[in-house]
């Protein structure tokens, strides 16, 4: 009953702690430290880390950069959506923007090549959710994030918006095609 009464010992902080608790605290602390050091370990030895490269921007500036990119590398138009399909050279800077309610443009990439993917929003927060790979990134207006990605599977991949962005949120899809080289 002393859980809701004043402690039985006035100097409770000098009462020795039982062995069971000491052993458990020791085990738990070791596990906590392992989990902590796993994160820096993965930065050194793991392949999936989020870059911290980002720039402040604005919709005009970012939109213009994306348009330049599309004009330069557009190869054709997607029949289903009328959206440009852009085929940038391997290793280049590639752009995608989120706006109500599309991911623009469609990217066509080569397998096992590394690209610098720029992500930005023209209006509200959006969520870049690459399916079915399941990579999820937050796209915040006013910021341009740059991530190095290396698609290691060929096929058609979809970008689902997974941050609520209004009534048409569920129609906001994008595509990334990855070709065998």
């Amino acid at each position, binding site marked *: 009953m002393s859980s*809701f009464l*004043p*402690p*039985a010992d006035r100097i409770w902080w000098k009462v020795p702690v039982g062995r069971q608790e000491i052993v*458990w605290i020791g085990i738990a602390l070791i596990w906590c430290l392992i989990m902590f050091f796993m994160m820096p370990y993965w930065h050194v030895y793991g392949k999936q880390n989020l870059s911290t490269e980002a720039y402040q921007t604005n919709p005009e500036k970012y939109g213009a950069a994306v348009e330049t990119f599309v004009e330069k590398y557009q190869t054709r138009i997607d029949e289903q959506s009328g959206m440009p399909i852009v085929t940038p050279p391997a290793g280049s800077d590639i752009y995608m923007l989120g706006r109500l309610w599309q991911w623009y443009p469609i990217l066509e990439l080569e397998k096992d090549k590394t690209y610098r993917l720029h992500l930005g929003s023209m209006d509200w927060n959006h969520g870049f959710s690459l399916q079915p790979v399941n990579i999820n990134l937050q796209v915040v207006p*006013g910021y341009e994030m740059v991530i190095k990605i*290396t698609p290691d599977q060929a096929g058609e991949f979809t970008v689902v918006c997974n941050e609520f962005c209004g009534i048409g949120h569920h129609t906001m899809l994008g595509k990334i095609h990855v070709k065998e080289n």
Partner: protein
Amino acid sequence: MAKFRVCPDSGFYFDKSAESLMKVNAVAGAVFLLIAGILALGVILTRWQEVHLLPADLFYQVLTAHGINALLFWVIFFEIAILYFASSTLLRSRLAAPGWAWAGFALMIIGAVMNNVAVLQGNSSVMMTSYVPMQAAPHFYLGLILFAVGALIGCFVFLGTLVIAKDDQTYQGSIPLVTFGALTACIIAIFTIASGAIILFPTFLWSIGYINHIDAEMYRIIWWAMGHSSQQINVAAHVSVWYLIIGILFNARPMSEKVSRFAFLLYIFFLQLASAHHILVDPGVSAEWKIFNTSYAMYLAVLASMIHGLTVPGAMEVAQRGKGYTKGLFEWLRKAPWGNPVFSGFFFALVIFGFIGGITGVVMGTEQINLIIHNTIYVPAHFHATVAVGTTLTFMALTYLLIPVLFRRALFLPWVAKMQPYVFAGGMTIMILFLLGAGTLGVSRRHWDMDFTGAALSFEYPGTAYMMMAVGGIGGVLGVLGGAMYLVVTVGSLLFGKKLEPSAGLLQSFGVPLAASAYNIDQPEQLQMAPKLAVEEHGSGGFEAPGTFVLALALLVCFVVYYAINWDYLASVWPMG
């Protein structure tokens, strides 16, 4: 002069004004739980794709209101009642400044109603998080601000009561562990509310046009210092309630006052860093900042929860063994009062909070693993294990204790109360496990249509994802049924429950007079320190609670295995850096 009554069943002394305030806050909490529960049904039946009940606009509106009513209004009203109980009742002290406490309550009600009206009017379907630059109506933010100010007043009434109790020497020695835990919750609440003020006040000014720009990333970082920390208030509060419940049901005493209090102290130092959990895949935040903060320094707050995870059931086991339930590892648990909803509710909350909520929380809060989880439906699955089961079911269990003690009524339909924790915990566990699965398959949270009807492009989730959302939906409906059972019992008890003597119903809170003899104690006698027990050795080799130790090791094994599985999953996605 304050007047107290003594509860003949529990021996608790209730200061009249504190009692009234506890009642109205608890009842207000239950009303907002009712609203949240009805809205939950709308959310579940829409996300269950085969049912897909609501149209898109209504779905987002309902989802916004569900989140705010459940995560803020229900739990915080109930927590204010707990703060008054842990200070005034447990310390046998008059409540500090009851007038201020009533003013705080009024502000919280006005704020909560104002915010709900804003959402109901339809221009504020911005989700609980209201990320800028998506804008809600000004009274959406103003309602939240008023609610927060009211809650802040409640925190200071609690602190004031601690000061009065100390000055009046209403107790010997140090404050009880439960009060210490409530103090932890209060300190975290003050930090939380301060963060909320820092971001919501400018956002309110922006919504009425006095400020023209709020940085979207800054909003997210500061908002989450409120949003996540407010859930840490819940953790500190419900762990305190666990200690209270094992104390009342089993006469349990903490295995070590020092260890349990130290664990609460770790909460104060480190829990707030969890704001970072929501920023792990945001642009421009350094890896060092993310690693330090997402791990609460070095998982020291996780360490604290793992300590409570041992000491709460451990204290219960020691008490049960002392009563002679010493056979094998688990007789103490088998012979526990499983038919008493106070016990079953508490124990399910403990297990689901630890095994599901705790483990998934740490896994998804790992800097890199968050890449495969952020904003998927895995996230709501996690926090339904922590808040909707951990906190909510704990508060439900406590309610079954408070109805006779605080409201002086016998339970209405006790057989419903007996089943309620099983239905609620069972349904919620099904929902949580299957939504965790769907999230792992990439299904989004806050998303009206996983068929993407009307989109220019198309995408199909695997059939398994649909199956998981459907089974999760069934679990969710069961959970809502469990919530409804809770409300039937509580509302029924207040209206129709047999009156116990001395009796002061809810109406007395609003000044309806009652028999003068009920409150005839000017000042209760001083609260004595817990009696010292002769040292009894149970278990062996200093392991007083061997069954609990085995359970704790089982938790650790699940933790390690699941953590490793997720790193393995992460290693399979596209390399990036």
